């Protein structure tokens, strides 16, 4: 009897708490429109979360920004840098808790842009494109904003940067010259084998002439060349299980073959220092996602010479629009002002370079109009994170880079091939999500070992496929096919 009384009390308390929480949320004030040509009278503080390593001298950048923006849009900016280790977890909790902030970094692979957008975490920006974000919108290549839309609505502005993915070899140029190897003629891992055998024999320093991780192993090239799309479509519009394709088997066999012949290191499954080894001159070649100036960025103070050459065509894929974005939070108290700030960030070189390089004379020295030299240990340098902020075409380059990097980047974007699958988004209900989670558990268990060549594909692939069948991959394929067909229909209209 006593117990019952307590339970009912508890229940009442819980209900009351729920009710309070319900009433508390969504107190968003209505959007206040502003005149684009006028500086508003009230000041507003923008709470901005960046995915970047925290910098000790961030306060002087905030002060400089505030000075500059006061007469333009009357805002102050609070910069919060969170490292990638913390960013996803902290921001997701903040969004779920409906906590106030204004602006944040989001992407398809970090902070789950698509699901958070669907859940209403971000402000829809379509209405601003003709007004507050007009200058920014004009700067994008055609079609890019469509890639960022979720169910037809734009919830974040993509960072204007390289908009395509291309894979290519990065390699030791001095060694290639020594043996007269023309890397641009090798278009597959299989072609490359004689070169690797020769290097292994003649260069004792290079025990393992080639190196890879899960994303740069032979399968990556197959996937990229045949353009097997992320959720598993073939070019002829049939969805299929990519792990059951002969291409996947072939790629795993190649990886296994290289592994057994000792072209790749034996701890490739667990190693994380592939690029460091390469920089120390211990690896001849690696497959990497490339863009103009990639090796200069990677190996800027190495004693060896490096070069790069493309293997696949640059492709605009689903990452073009959703790989790196800035989103305005639905909890922002003044989204219009934040949008105006975003517009300035995307179009004003002074603001962009202040945010990434810091203050002239204090954090960098200016070499010429568009080149800077960072001052070491100055307490502020976010240049490495420039690709998560605004518009990279406004950046001042550093002296280590090729001066025409940005022109090359524009060229790269212009030449990239578009694909019609890159705007496809899968809709999922709870059951499907459950199944997807089970499928990706199985994939996590097998894919990496197979792809890097650490296990024998002959016995492991059948086991892998069997496990996938158990968790319902066939149903999932059917489900994807229906959605994909529907998507193709909307595309034709």
């Amino acid at each position, binding site marked *: 009897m006593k117990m019952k009384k307590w339970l009912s009390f508890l229940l009442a308390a819980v209900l009351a708490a729920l009710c309070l929480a319900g009433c508390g949320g969504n107190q968003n004030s209505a959007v206040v429109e502003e005149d684009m040509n006028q500086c508003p009278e009230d000041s507003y503080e923008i709470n901005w979360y960046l995915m970047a390593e925290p910098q000790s001298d961030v306060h002087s950048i905030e002060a400089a920004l505030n000075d500059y923006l006061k007469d333009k849009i009357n805002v102050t900016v609070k910069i919060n840098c*969170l490292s*990638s280790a913390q960013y996803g977890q902290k921001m997701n909790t903040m969004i779920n*808790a409906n906590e106030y902030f204004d602006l944040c970094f989001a992407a398809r692979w970090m902070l789950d842009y698509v699901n958070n957008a669907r859940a209403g975490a971000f402000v829809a920006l379509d209405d601003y494109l003709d007004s507050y974000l007009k200058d920014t919108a004009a700067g994008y290549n055609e079609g890019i904003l469509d890639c960022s839309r979720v169910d037809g609505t734009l919830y974040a502005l993509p960072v204007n940067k390289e908009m395509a993915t291309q894979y290519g070899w990065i390699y030791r140029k001095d060694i290639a010259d020594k043996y007269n190897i023309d890397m641009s003629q090798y278009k597959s891992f299989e072609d490359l084998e004689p070169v690797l055998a020769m290097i292994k024999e003649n260069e004792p320093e290079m025990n393992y002439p080639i190196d890879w*991780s899960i*994303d740069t192993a032979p399968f990556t090239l197959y996937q990229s060349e045949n353009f097997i799309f992320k959720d598993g479509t073939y070019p002829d519009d049939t969805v299929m299980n990519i792990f059951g394709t002969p291409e996947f088997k072939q790629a795993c066999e190649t990886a296994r073959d290289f592994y057994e012949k000792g072209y790749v290191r034996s701890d490739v499954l667990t190693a994380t220092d592939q690029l*460091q080894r390469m920089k120390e001159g211990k690896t001849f070649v690696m497959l990497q996602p490339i863009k103009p100036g*990639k090796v200069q960025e990677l190996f800027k103070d190495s004693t060896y010479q490096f070069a790069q050459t493309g293997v696949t065509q640059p492709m605009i894929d689903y990452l073009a629009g959703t790989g790196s974005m800035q989103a305005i939070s639905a909890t922002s108290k003044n989204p219009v002002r934040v949008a105006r700030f975003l517009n300035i960030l995307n179009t004003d070189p002074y603001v962009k370079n202040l945010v990434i390089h810091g203050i002239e004379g204090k954090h960098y020295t200016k070499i010429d109009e568009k080149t800077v030299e960072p001052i070491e240990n100055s307490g502020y340098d976010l240049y*490495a994170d420039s690709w998560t902020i605004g518009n990279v075409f406004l950046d001042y380059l550093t002296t280590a880079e090729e001066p025409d990097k940005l022109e090359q980047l524009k060229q790269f974007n212009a030449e990239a091939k578009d694909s019609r699958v890159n705007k496809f988004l899968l809709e999922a209900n709870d059951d499907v999500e459950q199944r997807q989670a089970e499928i990706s558990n199985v994939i996590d268990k097998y894919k990496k070992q197979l792809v890097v060549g650490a296990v024998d594909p002959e016995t492991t692939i059948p086991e892998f496929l069997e496990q996938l069948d158990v968790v319902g991959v066939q149903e999932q394929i059917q489900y994807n096919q229906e959605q994909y067909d529907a998507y193709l229909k909307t595309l034709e209209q």
Partner: protein
Amino acid sequence: MLAEKKSNLILNIIFAIMFVVTVFPILLTISISLTDSRAIMDHGYSIWPETFSTEAYRYIFKTPETILRAYAVTIFVTVVGATLSTLIISLYSYALSRKDFKGRKVLTFYVFITMLFNGGTVAWYIVCTSLYHLSNTVWSMILPYLMNTWYIIIMRTFFQTSVPVSIIESGKLDGAGEWRIFFELVIPIAVPGIATIALFQTLNYWNDWWLPIMFIVKPELYNLQFLLQRMMQNIQQLNENAKYMANASEQLMNVPTDGARMALCIVAMGPILIVYPFFQKYFIQGLTIGSIKG
């Protein structure tokens, strides 16, 4: 006699194996932290440094303020947190252990329910941030762990079984108040239990990186474990997401070497090793000393 010797020998062998299994990783960590990074690249890990080098330690102490500040935060949080939480847990569970305490059932029920059910991360986060405004304060790393319902239940049982009612009654007869009974009669008997809880809480606070992830944005308030966790996580993130971060080349190259990671492990582990023997003394003592004679 012979059988005893035999079983002794077997026990010794088992413990020797367990000793090696636990000590070996620590020795390996120390060794890696003292090995030249190029030697690791060439020969892999070894129990004795191939080429001796203190480069890793110099690397992590390159900006000593960061590490020293993190040390200060961790030590403050651990000392204050462990002391406060042990006190609160002991007081609460002592009250629950007293049969003559009226609110006993209600408070036990309250503890029990919160142990079984909780509101989940988001509700907890909202309480901590909107109600108590803990974001970016050192208290955000102390308050959430102050009460631990599981330890309360353990301590209540411990008080009930190890502190006889007659001792409390004798205190009352001699005219002692409740506070005096608790601090002068009950605590000395309950030292082993309290020391156990104190040790657990010390470890909890020392090893915590979850609270800084949730509540700390200011770099000045990062603690030691968070620095370590962040370093490891960043490396993992960079490797997992390399294909998305085609632009993140520079971060990829600034990844600390294996040596630096291990050196930070050693630095983070050091002081807590000293705490162990200190608590151990109490375990052994407390287990052997009884309370009522005759």
